[in-house]
């Protein structure tokens, strides 16, 4: 495969971590930096970062909250709180969000971050009543362990089916075969990891 100077490469270059890409723990650090980079606020667009190393797969999903909830503020009505819970219920079901072809991958960990839209608690009010959330992104971070007898080559992304305001997903990936960027939309939902 011809490795091109992809957006992924540029992004990681920005945080100066290219020398460490062979090491998953450093890639995890790259994840954090990718996740926290300030990209323009585009409604309808979400981002996935996938890293495959041996039999481990890690996926980070980042999206403006509006794509999942229809709003970007702290939920306060019963209906808004229910929408936050429903979005979480969808995302936590990793097997519904991602279908792995040619490989059997089981979810081992998940961490959701909906802190930008969670209802204000009494403690928040006490700490800083007037301050709005610093960002309006939500994220989910998944870890999977895949059957070591096969190699994961394709990931089918089902997020479009559950969140109709996601129109486009930019998927950055790193795998044994190299790295790349996949542009996904409702009619093209598969990431080819080669």
């Amino acid at each position: 495969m011809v490795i091109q100077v992809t957006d992924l490469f540029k992004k990681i270059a920005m945080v100066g971590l290219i020398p460490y890409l062979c090491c998953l723990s450093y890639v995890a650090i790259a994840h954090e930096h990718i996740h926290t980079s300030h990209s323009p606020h585009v409604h309808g667009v979400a981002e996935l970062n996938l890293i495959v190393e041996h039999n481990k797969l890690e996926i980070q999903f980042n999206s403006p909250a509006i794509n999942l909830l229809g709003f970007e503020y702290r939920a306060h009505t019963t209906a808004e709180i229910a929408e936050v819970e429903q979005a979480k219920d969808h995302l936590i079901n990793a097997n519904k969000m991602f279908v792995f072809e040619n490989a059997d991958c089981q979810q081992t960990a998940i961490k959701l971050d909906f802190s930008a839209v969670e209802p204000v608690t009494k403690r928040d009010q006490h700490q800083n009543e007037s301050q709005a959330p610093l960002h309006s992104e939500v994220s989910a971070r998944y870890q999977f362990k895949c059957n070591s007898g096969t190699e994961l080559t394709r990931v089918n992304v089902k997020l479009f089916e559950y969140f109709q305001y996601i129109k486009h997903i930019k998927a950055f990936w790193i795998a044994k075969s190299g790295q790349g960027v996949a542009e996904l939309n409702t009619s093209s939902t598969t990431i080819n990891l080669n």
Partner: protein
Amino acid sequence: MEPVIQIPSKLRLSNESENVDVLTNIYQEHCNLSVWKRNLPASLVKNINTLLDSDKHLKLIRQVTPDSLYDDIYPTLDEFECAQELITDMTLLVDMFCCLFDLKQAGLRMAILNQAMCPKFHVDKVPCRLITTYAGSGTQWLPNELVDRLSLDLKTAESHHIAQLSSGDVALLKGESWPNNQNAGLVHRSPELKAGEKRLILTLDIVH
């Protein structure tokens, strides 16, 4: 020295008129906002304000056709006097939107808001979205030549350049998915609302 990253600016203009035909201007490459300026009938404004003064929570997300709209929406609004007139107007807009983009159906979102849905300037990754504010402050937007495309905000912090639609206006906002419109979608945001202020908004999206 840090390299300066710049996104080449494309020429994009807004069009507005009291003539409904202005909406077809959205097909022009250089147009990324077309606005049909109109005043809603006083009776409709009055009755919508009654709806907003109530405790009614409203958030509808549906795929609708001009023919289905009445049955889709009426049950939600039938206790309010504005129902008939409002749904008649919405049917007109859905019909126009479907006609303009040759659609059988549209993705409708209708909501009463008491705070900014998204207070940050942004673009939409859609081909085109219709937005109208039936009551309350209208959507804010930025003239293209004043936009920093990296931050999606004004190049200079001169907030008097922020433009705003009026209630009743019917606006077509060209998004980033329109052909040849990457990095040229209309930059816009929900207006900040004062305590107690509410808006009734309708958006229509292209659905195939």
